[in-house]
């Protein structure tokens, strides 16, 4: 019976450690917004995108750009294309949840638009990525979304000295 108790204690500790690992949150990135933006987008052909102004950020993304430290929104010049990229630096980490919610809503709205007429674009929307880490967030609808987000994560580690 004692051996079961010991195994139970070991398992309980492992379960707690597993759950605890979700409580470890990354610290704020010290990288500048300019550096993060440049690094994230460096392999992307930005000619096909237009950087949107605050009015369009409000209109398309339903977020208030003045509430954030920095926001950049790049939208494909062709309205028949779904690809777009949003980079954001939060004023405080608790803005992350609202940002994720707004971006997920954007994906859902875009999906509704493209679903019936442009299945390839709808597929892009389905594979869209919304990711936040401490004081930064990104939303990407792009066929190379994974690579862009990987570069974003790398950029948060900061400029190499």
């Amino acid at each position, binding site marked *: 019976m004692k051996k079961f108790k010991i195994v*139970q204690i070991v*398992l309980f500790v492992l*379960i707690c450690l597993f759950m605890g690992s979700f409580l470890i949150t990354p610290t704020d990135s010290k990288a500048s917004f300019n550096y993060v933006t440049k690094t994230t987008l460096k392999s992307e052909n930005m000619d096909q995108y237009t950087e949107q102004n605050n009015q369009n950020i409000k209109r398309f993304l339903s977020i208030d750009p003045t509430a954030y430290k920095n926001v950049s929104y790049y939208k494909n010049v062709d309205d028949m294309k779904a690809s777009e990229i949003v980079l954001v630096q939060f004023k405080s980490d*608790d803005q992350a949840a609202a940002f994720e919610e707004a971006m997920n809503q954007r994906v859902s709205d875009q999906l*509704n638009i493209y*679903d019936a007429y442009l299945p390839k674009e709808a597929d892009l929307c*389905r594979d869209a990525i919304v990711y936040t880490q401490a004081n930064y967030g990104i939303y990407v609808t792009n066929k190379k979304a994974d690579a862009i987000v990987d570069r974003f994560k790398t950029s948060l580690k900061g400029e190499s000295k």
Partner: protein
Amino acid sequence: MSFSSLIFIFAFLPLTLLLYHLLPTSQIKNMVLLFASFLFYAWDDPKFLILLILSVLWNYVSALSFNQETDTKKRKRSFVFGVVVNILILGFFKYTNFFLGGLVHLKLSLPIGLSFFTFSAISYLADVYMGKSKAQKNLLSVALYISFFGKVNMGPIVQYHDMEEFLAKREVTGEKWNTGIVLFLKGLFKKVLIADRLAVMFGALAADTSVVGTWLYAISYMLQLYFDFSGYSDMAIGLSRLFGFDFAPNFDHPYIARNIQDFWRRWHISLSRWFRDYIYIPLGGNRVSQTMYIRNIMIVWLCTGLWHGANWTFIVWGLYYGLLLLLEKYFLRDILSHVPTAVQHIYTLLLVLIGWVFFMSPNIGAAFGVIGRMFFIGTNGLISSSAWFYLKSNILLLIVACVFSTTFYKYLWRMDVVFLHKQAPLAATIVYVLLFVISITYIISSTYQSFLYFAF
């Protein structure tokens, strides 16, 4: 991985079946099934496989531990501890942010199927504790019971004592094979050909504020949820038969119910049974004073609501059903028994529809907004042009969905068995193959929607 994904239908399932049926002993077959189940579970997010394995080990050891206790108090304490750790895991991932109330928002993603496999695990502990089953010495059997890919993601929540005998030995008869395939296909058709079409209509009408548009919005969700979840359950039960298991149906035409109690005997039967057997009856069931009975009902329905999600809408949805069941028991039963059957159906469908509005809404305010618009409050007219468009273009789909949510399919199945299978088996096969090809076409054309109950 989802049952209605191409990789599952054309690679995972056929390969697992092939391997399973080629291998000789039940122990090796179980090993293959367990490996396949772990692969299935880890497909989308491998990190949560660790949690599933820890859960399996925890419950295996816990049952053996309290089963060896001779002292009743210590045994109970050990059992309660086993259950509490399961609830702790569920609570941590599912309810932490809800209970923190927005003070801090932790980045916790819900492991897929957590609510389902945790309830299976608790069923195992409870069955051993209550003496319904013996503590399993074979780790493989406990692991397969909790993780079997036929039920790990979205149920049905098969109770351990119902699955126990199949874990040791099972047989795949010709009858099981045939009914399994047909049930799997039936589920696929329900999901792809009906639920996913209704999902498009539901999504399109989300912003419609006319009376008819709001009714269509709510009705399309009501039908979508049924065809989505019952379709998944049919697929789960069907494919389980291909591996020799025999699970009870999870749905029994809930929308033909004549009252709320009847509805809950037909909707998500495995979850209702779980709450009845492991919460309601241990609390005393109905063999207690009236006050305690009311308390028991409200506890069960509060838990049912909470089980579905960490949101006030689910809590209200659960309590709403608790109150309706009490109202029926104490006031409405006699009245309902004296009104025509059609009125009983309308009464049930209307109340269930209102319930689904709470269930589908992001918050209570939005739910009341939808209910208000259904009854001419806060609308912008009787019918909008988009509502009229979606009504016209989906009328056939709505009729098909309504017809197939009755016992019409059972009738068709009898006709099929009696007439087609005997007189023209080739014709029956062609019908199924044709529907299968259409379903696959829909999946390939990317109009597939993920299963709604994955969210729970």
